[in-house]
């Protein structure tokens, strides 16, 4: 019923850095409840696309609609409040906090915290804090890190830090989650775990958009694949269609065919 409804619609989007066109009108619609992979050679504009969607960059032109609401010109924290969450290509966990606290911070949008309510420890604030703590533990169970809840986040190996970042992004109960290279730097076992975690997130009803270079991950889990090259959309379709698309093959192999 709602499966085919677009949750995120992007049209006529232009993002330029000086003379460089980082994004040039890669129109597309993300369907609710799907996993969409954004792929493309280095410098294709994948991370820029994420930064524009999540409000870290303001595009020069174009519109982005999330659940039929325009989110252009909104600040990152406002977009997070609307239900779009994200992770970063270079892991950005809070290394000065424990694993549990990292996830608890993810609940920030559900918290109306001010210095006054916190300072006086109003009953509502205390109750909320307890509630958040137990929900954060549930998330740690979901991502398989509950055994390490009290450890400093920076003591985790990279694979677990990436998983923790995903857990933190899930805490805000997002409708859409943008994962920037969730499998980068992971070994085969770890990236397999990351894949199944992403599938489990989809099962929860969360729409996933991910940038990924690991083609095995992309082909295994995505419903749709968007291929960018020089900021433009060169293909969009199911993994099967993309694999055989001559334009995609050309973009990846290039004219000289030096890189596969």
């Amino acid at each position, binding site marked *: 019923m709602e499966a085919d409804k677009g949750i995120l619609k992007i049209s006529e989007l232009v993002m330029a850095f000086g003379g460089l066109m980082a994004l040039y009108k890669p129109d597309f619609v993300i369907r609710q409840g799907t996993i969409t992979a954004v792929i493309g050679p280095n410098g294709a504009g994948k991370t820029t696309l994420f930064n524009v969607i*999540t409000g*870290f960059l303001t595009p020069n032109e174009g519109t982005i609609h999330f659940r039929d609401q325009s989110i252009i010109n909104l*600040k*990152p*924290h406002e977009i*997070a*409040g609307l239900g779009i*969450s*994200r992770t*970063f290509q270079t892991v*950005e*966990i*809070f*290394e*000065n*906090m*424990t694993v549990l*606290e990292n996830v*608890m*911070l*993810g*609940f*920030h*949008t559900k*918290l109306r*915290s*001010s*210095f006054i309510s*916190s*300072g*006086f*420890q109003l009953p509502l*604030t205390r109750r*909320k*804090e307890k509630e*958040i703590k137990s929900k954060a533990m549930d998330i740690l169970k979901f991502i398989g890190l509950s055994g390490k809840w009290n450890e*400093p986040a920076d003591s985790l190996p990279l694979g677990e830090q990436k998983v923790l970042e995903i857990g*933190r*992004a899930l*805490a*805000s109960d997002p409708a859409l989650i943008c994962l920037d290279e969730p499998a980068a730097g992971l070994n085969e076992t770890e990236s397999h775990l990351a894949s199944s975690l992403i599938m489990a997130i989809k099962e929860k009803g969360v729409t996933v958009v991910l940038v990924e270079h690991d083609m095995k991950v992309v082909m295994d889990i995505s419903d749709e694949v968007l291929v960018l090259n020089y900021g433009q959309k060169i293909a969009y379709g199911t993994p099967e269609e993309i694999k055989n698309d001559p334009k995609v093959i050309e973009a990846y192999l290039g004219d000289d065919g030096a890189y596969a």
Partner: protein
Amino acid sequence: MMLRISKYSIFFFALIIILFPRIASNISAIEHYPDIMIFAGIYCLITIGLSLLMGYAGQISLGHGAFYGIGAYISAILTTRFGWNPWSCMVIGAVITSIVAFVVGAPSLKLKGHYLAMATLAFGVIVFIIFNEEIEWTGGPDGMTGISGLTLFGFPLNTVERYYYFVWGIVLAVFIFTVNIIQSGSGRALRAIHSSEAAAMAMGVDVSRYKIMVFTYSAALASVAGSLYAHYLNFVNPSSFDIFFSIKLLIMIALGGMHYIWGAIIGAVIITFLNYEWLHYFEELEILVYGAILLIVTIFLPQGLAGIPAIVKHWFRRTLSDGSR
């Protein structure tokens, strides 16, 4: 890692505060220590806010001496020129200082690291010049006298002991309030900003709002401290609010350990005693001692004195696990 602050440690802290004057009054060598502790308490109010701002939220300020001075001068001017009630002066001082902090902070907090430090330093210099030059209002370098003392429910706070309990009562209340902030969603947001502004934003933290909130809160505390100072000494002059004082505040939280809220108390107390008591022998070479302290702490003890228990614990664990192998 932030250690949880237990109720017992706060209770123990309160007990020390209560007992200290009783103990000191029985030992002639330290009889006058409660008087010094009043100043230590006043500085604690500033360092608690500064520790939240710098240690937790990671924003550098070299201008808090100015906020302290604004509080003191507002109390001084309103009581001596207009005969206002000292309590309302204190409140008005805190409100005006908050507004100033908001106006200065809103653009400055967009700056990062050294630039923020320079902007707040410049602010401190400007305010210091105003204290010196606006002779008509501030009395210039000579300062102002005749600032009225405080009376609590018809009970004049006119002895060292009374003022001691009054100041440290406020310190305790502010300490608990600040600990509550740290151990809640707001405190997590501040630490998140310290660690990664991008990730904090992506998780829905309104980074500029929190930065301004913590900056304003710490400035308001400094202002209250300034008023307490003015009403205690009944005298103010600009030299108490110069740049060196702002730097001394930094030395206090660096020595105590700015990532631990206890560090604010420990550092303020130690530096105050050095300042008023233990360093007299050095006279103008005093500044070298402060420099040496800052140097030694940043090189050998970056977590400050409050970080020592964690280091010892870590060391013990390592030795124990090595031994069991």
